[in-house]
């Protein structure tokens, strides 16, 4: 089963290395990892999608929590949350099929962001299911290149996690 971990970390050099190295050293896999700073510029949030059973996730969480630069680890898999991923797809598109591609793009509420002589770049955002679906629907036209950001996630409702207390109380 895939778990979504939301991890608050100190925004400083080397933190990503520490997190990635931990996964490598202990033999855990990463499906995707997205990182960016939070509303507090000193703090970043990583959204990490990790495959594994309960035992693996428990170890991942505990080991991550031991890293000094990691402020808070939350497994939000079972929480109510909004997830999004952004995808850019470069697809082979001579003028004869462009109309058909545009229709599919509309259905997915995606956008064409670049048009070349024989290709298009499509941008789409959505949950993982939607992103997979649009990628699949483009296969028959010939996908030239795909870039995905990895999933980011935000828990619904009022501010979540005790770490948020830290965000507001931290001396700046």
């Amino acid at each position: 089963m895939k778990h979504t971990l939301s991890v608050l970390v100190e925004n400083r050099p080397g933190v990503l290395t520490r997190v990635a190295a931990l996964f490598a050293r202990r033999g855990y896999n990463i499906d995707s990892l997205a990182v960016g700073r939070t509303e507090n510029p000193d703090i970043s949030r990583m959204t990490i999608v990790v495959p594994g059973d309960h035992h693996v996730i428990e170890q991942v969480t505990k080991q991550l929590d031991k890293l000094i630069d990691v402020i808070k680890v939350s497994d939000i898999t079972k929480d109510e949350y909004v997830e999004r991923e952004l995808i850019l797809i470069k697809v082979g598109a001579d003028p004869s099929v462009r109309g058909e591609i545009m229709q599919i793009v509309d259905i997915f509420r995606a956008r064409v962001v670049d048009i070349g002589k024989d290709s298009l770049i499509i941008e789409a955002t959505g949950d993982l299911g939607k992103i997979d679906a649009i990628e699949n629907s483009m296969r028959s036209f010939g996908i030239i290149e795909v870039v995905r950001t990895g999933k980011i996630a935000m828990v619904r409702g009022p501010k979540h996690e005790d770490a948020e207390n830290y965000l507001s109380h931290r001396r700046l």
Partner: protein
Amino acid sequence: MAVEKKGMEVDGVGSVGDKLPCKKLVMNGAELVVKALEDEGVEVIFGFPGGAVLPLYDALYYSEKIKHILVRHEQCAAHAADGYARSSGKVGVCVATSGPGATNLVTGIANAYMDSIPMVAITGQVVVSAIGRDSFQEADITGITLPITKHNFLLNDVEQIVPTIKKAFHIASTGRPGPVLIDLPRDITTMEAEYRPDMELDTPGYKIPKMQGRDALEEIAEVLKQSEKPVIYAGGGILRSKAQGELLSLAEKHDIPVTTTLMGKSCFPENHGLSLGMLGMHGTVYANYAVSECDLLLGIGVRFADRVTGNISTFAQNARVVHMDIDPAEIGKNVPVDYEVVGDIREILSSLLRLAPEKKHCEWNETIDGWKDKYPLHYDNSTDIIKPQYVIEQICEVTEGRAYVATEVGQHQMWAAQYYKSLMPGSFSTSGGLGTMGFGFPASIGMQMANPDATVFNIAGDGSIQMNIQELATIAQYDLPVNIAILNNQYLGMVRQWQEIFHGRRYSQTDMSHQPDFVKLAEAYGVEALKVEKKEEVRPAIEKAVGSKKPFLMDFHVEREENVFPMVPPGGSIKKMIRG
């Protein structure tokens, strides 16, 4: 301190009502490092100078509070700091220069990490602007030590020196202890900054595990009441949290036999009636039987390492398993447990002592005494050839179990664990997790520095001692009365034993009979030494060494093909031992 010479005082700029003193101290980075170390109570540093740490050594030159021990190889600086920490409970400190100096520390840092030893390692680094350009003597030591430190820092701001050193000591010594490395670019140590010792620590991500599982403790007290056949399995965590007193009370009040891991050795007096000695691969028969037959296993400050458990599926299979440890990530990592308590072991044990009523387990202890009578540790001492076990028994007798002992790794290490009955907590240092040959001799230097009046022994093999033999110069220079006992069988004995048992006696690359004359070698370094080839010379040699109060090396020529027994084949059940 350097302040007198170089520091200058300037008028303060603090506003009215500011609690800062109106004069402020300005020092260069190197002086700030030394001052911060002094503030942490550091009395000894083990190190080796070099280009990138020249300013630091310049500042150390003026320190009256810190004594610097010049080792002959940086690896030994780390091991000596490690031995110092193990035997004093304080943080060990080592220093090396950039590049090769720093990389030479790596084994010592990894060793401390595996055994959870509090250590601060300070390395020089090339100037900030040269980092990343493959400069002379540059190594990415924070990158290299990332998986073997509890945390590490690359300092690039002179203002951060004092708070970073504070943080490093805090992180190294609290929670589950471990090594912390500070990489110090040379130019940072020559810039000036104000000395501000009162800066607040800012480590939001560092959590010292608080005690969790008070409910579990009540359940454990209840289970303890019901248990007929309990066993305590005690590890290094007892020594790290100084909980030996609580352990002793728990064992005595509840009449529970205690087996220790290699790391836990010395946390429980080994002449005590409830002591089972060590368990696991080379543990005593009675310890392994007791664990296999018990109905309740209290794992305290342990990590259920593979050398202890053997085949996990048969380990303590009749028992309910309790695991108490400071590190939540250790709970359930290797073995599923029935009851868990996370927190400081001393605090946990004090709480448990208050909850659980006293109880006797006469029948169970009689059973165990039966095993002790039937399957004692034994070796054939009937020949004239010196047996290695005999040498260790004699060392134990002469020192009455009260010496500080550091071992290397191999057969002699296991014999020392089996036959040296340690009576003082923290008096036995050995490389448990990493299994580092060459650890013991430098560690014994650290132990002697921490306990200047104590009798210190390095029990070594002829293979291991050659890994860091150059430290003879160090003990000679500082006149450290370390006693080196080499159990010389002219083999890499433990590897040879495995080759004998598992590889058809094909002794591939384990014959070490081409070796130096250790006596002449020691004498060349200015260390008194004796070669011992006769059994009747063993005890007088030990007495002479201990009595000399000087550095002393003993080269005991022992039975070449003696094996360490009992032995559990790797991956086997600890119930099924080769008893020898």
